[in-house]
């Protein structure tokens, strides 16, 4: 059907039709279709439009009962649209057809038989009008006088809801036109509809009425739900009254007995809903808790539900609950169910990123650059060819590598012509990245302990065209004995894999406390070996990067903190400007404040595998630990001679030794602690007892014995003071253990300062005493800041120990509280008062 000419907007009459500007279908059709509010209106055919127009004409007088703007689009909208269109066309065509009739063109029967044949005639009229309309396209454009007024009426009638056009409001046709009686009979319009159309209208009316009622009911329901209820909780009350259409029953924590029943036949949907409910309650616990139920009950229930829903073991889930707040926890668990996007790294030794991207796109791979932090990374969205078998891959143009695995190499920043050690290199992605950054200069020693995985290293390095690498098969702990003096070292330590659960779901269940501690132990050993392999005096290097694909604090911050104490290294910024900072405190542990420069990555926040990266700088090649026994024997004397012997006596050497000895003493004592959960440790210096047992005893015993020899020299009085002070400190820490500790120290005091006896006494006290002693001995070191005078001297030494490790080794230890200790929180106030009292007791 042709376009209607709008006389108000005269189109340019040019030599051809094309001279008329076309405004686009939307503007054209807007005149036909009722409104944009009519979302259900279809594009109607010309016949449909005519019918709709007729319907609208006839139903204009129908009472507008269904004007409520329901949320649901009613089917009535559709007929409305049809009506509107039909009205328009009919209205427009009416005068036209009349005009034509007057002109004696072929007219349908209605012109003669108005009453009887109104129905049929009307239909025919519409049909014929359509035909006429179609045939007289051009002429109609010019002579459509009625269109304008109709469109205006149409727009005026537009309101939300059903539109009924009052045809009587139309402009009267020009005089002289014989008006069809059908047009004037508005009330009889219904009769002229097809039966189906009548039924549709009735249906529409009915539904409109129903819809109104439904919407009224809905608002009532919501109001009911909004009313606060005392006992049970409602999710919609959270977040400032966010109204959610949840079902009526409030969430009730199932009684303890029922908690066990679910294990047999968990209904996952129910479990999932319960998880969401509990998370909502816990978010606003004060307001939404159920009376009489404790927070721990809710947490336990949540833990069980999460374990059921996501198939985690209890241990790992408990660790994750400690690590993440609840909202993040659910996100983290969800992220672990989904694999991370596939990423690859361009091998700049052979190609450039844009060339590679072009070549891969030509093969049918959908990819994008990885991010502005990477110049060589590409992320693959989907691919029609296997991305690990394209000719470009085989030619060594790229390597499939996780995004988080690119970060440690970027942090290490290997320079050309350097000697680099990669301690755990399989499958060779990081090694090859380092080689390409070094442009195949210098040397890389790629080592791995697993022979099977070394094959893939060889394959990958050859494929990527890396020529500056030597591949070896050592246990990483054998460095630096094999070869040392590297400029930089990368240690991607074997870990529990809790950051890559999405790659290996078995980690969810097969990791427990033992595994984590074993991993931590191995990582500590490897890290110490790696540190020893770095040449601190290297002109361009002296850096070490330690990274794991785990998110556990025991494998990350704890290990780094351990290394900071044991070696002359310090943490430096990684150079990565995104990622979460490492923890400086976690539950009851306290770590060195420089751990803030370490970086953590999570799957749910960064969309890459869980990772931890820490960058060390070694500032001295000397190893504090391995100093001779003489140094350590002086420790107790120095430590405990506060007022008696002036600090000046404690020159740099004894101070060093003191520090070392203090450490060894602590470690010696610690090693005798029975296997305890490491959570009992108050500060980050504590190490897993079992982790120390293996390597420490042999070293410690010799040192202890030598120490004891020297300690025989100090005056008995001093020692007595020392012992009492230490005892006092111990008392400070755990008052309930006073008596037993006293006994232990008195026992020590009783035998003369024979080397062996003291050693024995140190080594062989009862288990409990041994545990108490080191633990408490440790406490004052870590905790006490505002301590009494007696305890002051010991602390500076210990703090000096930390200082020395973390800064340049200085000689005289200032008796001030070192900045490092400031990271440790002050002890509980109540303990101080107790200790004061106890200390005085002892001294007197």
């Amino acid at each position, binding site marked *: 059907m042709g376009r209607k000419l709008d006389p108000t907007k005269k189109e340019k009459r040019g030599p051809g039709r094309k001279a008329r500007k076309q405004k686009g279908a939307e503007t054209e059709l807007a005149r036909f279709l009722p409104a944009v509010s009519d979302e259900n209106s279809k594009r109607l055919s010309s016949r449909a439009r005519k019918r709709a127009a007729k319907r609208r004409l006839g139903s204009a007088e129908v009472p507008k009962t269904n004007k409520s703007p329901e949320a649901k689009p009613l089917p009535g909208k559709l007929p409305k649209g049809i009506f509107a269109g039909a009205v328009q066309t009919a209205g427009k065509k009416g005068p036209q057809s009349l005009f034509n009739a007057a002109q004696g063109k072929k007219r349908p029967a209605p012109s003669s038989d108005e009453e009887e044949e109104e129905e049929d005639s009307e239909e025919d009229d519409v049909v014929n009008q359509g035909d006429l309309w179609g045939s007289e396209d051009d002429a109609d454009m010019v002579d459509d006088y009625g269109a304008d007024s109709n469109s205006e009426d149409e727009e005026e009638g537009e309101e939300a809801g059903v539109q009924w056009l009052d045809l009587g409001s139309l402009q009267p046709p020009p005089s002289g036109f014989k008006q069809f009686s059908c047009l004037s009979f508005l009330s009889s319009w219904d009769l002229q509809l097809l039966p189906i159309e009548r039924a549709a209208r009735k249906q529409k009316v009915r539904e409109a009425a129903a819809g109104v009622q439904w919407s009224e009911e809905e608002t009532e329901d919501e109001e009911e739900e909004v009313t606060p209820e005392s006992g049970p909780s409602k999710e919609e009350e959270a977040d400032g009254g966010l109204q959610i259409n949840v079902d009526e029953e409030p969430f009730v924590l199932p009684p303890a007995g029922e908690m066990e029943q679910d294990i047999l036949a968990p209904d996952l949907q129910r479990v999932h809903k319960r998880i969401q409910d509990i998370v909502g309650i816990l978010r606003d616990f004060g307001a939404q808790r159920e009376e009489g139920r404790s927070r721990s009950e809710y947490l336990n229930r949540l833990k069980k539900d999460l374990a059921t829903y996501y198939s985690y073991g209890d241990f790992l889930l408990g660790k994750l609950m400690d690590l993440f707040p609840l909202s993040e926890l659910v996100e983290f668990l969800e992220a672990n169910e989904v694999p991370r996007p596939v990423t690859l790294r361009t091998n700049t030794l052979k190609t450039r990123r844009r060339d590679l991207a072009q070549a891969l796109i030509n093969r049918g791979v959908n990819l994008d650059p990885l991010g502005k932090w990477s110049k060589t990374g590409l992320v693959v969205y989907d691919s029609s060819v296997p991305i690990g078998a394209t000719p470009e891959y085989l030619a060594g143009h790229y390597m499939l590598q996780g995004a988080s695995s690119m970060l440690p190499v970027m942090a290490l920043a290997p320079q050309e012509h350097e000697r680099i050690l990669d301690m755990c290199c399989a499958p060779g992605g990081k090694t090859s990245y380092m080689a390409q950054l070094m442009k195949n200069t210098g040397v890389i020693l790629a080592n791995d302990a697993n022979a099977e995985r070394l094959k893939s290293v060889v*394959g990958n390095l*050859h494929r990527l065209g890396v020529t500056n690498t030597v591949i070896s098969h050592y246990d990483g702990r054998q460095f630096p004995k094999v070869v040392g003096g590297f400029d930089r070292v990368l240690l991607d330590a074997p870990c529990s894999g809790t950051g890559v659960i999405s790659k290996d779901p078995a980690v969810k269940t097969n990791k427990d406390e033992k595994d984590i501690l074993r991993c931590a132990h191995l990582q500590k050993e490897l890290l110490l070996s790696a540190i020893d392999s770095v040449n601190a005096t290297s002109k361009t290097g002296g850096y070490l990067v330690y990274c794991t694909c785990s998110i556990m604090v025991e494998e990350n911050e704890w290990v780094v903190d351990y290394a900071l104490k044991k070696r002359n290294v310090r943490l430096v910024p990684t150079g990565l400007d995104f990622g979460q900072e490492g923890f400086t405190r976690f539950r009851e542990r306290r770590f060195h404040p420089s751990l803030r420069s370490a970086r953590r990555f999570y799957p749910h926040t960064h969309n890459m595998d869980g990772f931890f990266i820490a960058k060390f700088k070694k500032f001295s090649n000397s190893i504090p630990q391995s100093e001779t026994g003489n140094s350590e024997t002086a420790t107790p004397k120095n430590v405990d001679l506060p007022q008696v012997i002036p600090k000046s006596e404690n020159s740099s050497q004894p101070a060093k030794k003191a520090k070392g000895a203090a450490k060894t003493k602590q470690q010696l004592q610690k090693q005798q602690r029975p296997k305890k959960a490491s959570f009992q440790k108050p500060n980050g210096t504590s190490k897993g007892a079992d982790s120390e047992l293996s390597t420490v005893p042999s070293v410690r015993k010799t040192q202890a014995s030598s120490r004891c020899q020297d300690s025989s020299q100090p005056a008995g009085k001093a020692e007595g003071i020392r012992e009492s002070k230490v005892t006092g400190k111990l008392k400070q820490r755990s008052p309930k253990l006073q008596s037993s500790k006293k006994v232990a120290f008195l026992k020590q005091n009783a035998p003369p300062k024979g080397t062996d006896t003291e050693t024995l006494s140190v080594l062989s006290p009862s288990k409990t005493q041994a545990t108490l002693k080191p633990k408490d001995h440790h406490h004052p070191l870590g905790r006490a800041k505002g301590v009494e005078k007696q305890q002051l001297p010991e602390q500076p030494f210990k703090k000096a120990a930390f200082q020395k490790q973390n800064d340049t080794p200085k000689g005289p230890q200032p008796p001030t509280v070192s900045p490092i200790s400031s990271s440790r929180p002050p002890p509980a106030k109540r303990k101080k008062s107790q200790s004061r009292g106890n200390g005085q007791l002892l001294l007197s």
Partner: protein
Amino acid sequence: MRPLTEEETRVMFEKIAKYIGENLQLLVDRPDGTYCFRLHNDRVYYVSEKIMKLAANISGNKLVSLGTCFGKFTKTHKFRLHVTALDYLAPYAKYKVWIKPGAEQSFLYGNHVLKSGLGRITENTSQYQGVVVYSMADIPLGFGVAAKSTQDCRKVDPMAIVVFHQADVGEYVRHEETLT
């Protein structure tokens, strides 16, 4: 790890010279450092002196690889070139063969090159000459031996073999274990 004996050196150079001819000298005398061949566990490695010094510290049974492995000596002391040498053969190759995109996959699976897959071939290639195989985008795919001289290649029917397959980059995926 030890240097090659005279005999071994001769055998190996002969083999390599089949592909790159007198450019072999360029492998040995490089402007950016002295490179040498070393034998370790029957495999020949091509390394620079600096890297070799570091590798000398590593005990023999722990050393897995150094530099680039060119190939290995078989039990009967014949030298077999591996695909890992491709990066050094490709730039210096004297006779090259380009294969069509459709025939790439077949070659990467270890099949010989048929006449139907042959895109281009260097002029005056003699029969049984060592050739390096490229894709049409000039990506080296492997090397082989010409089954027919260039003249014969024109005459022969499309299903005839024109290049015998010897090594291809698909072996990185197919035969990962044999690389070490």
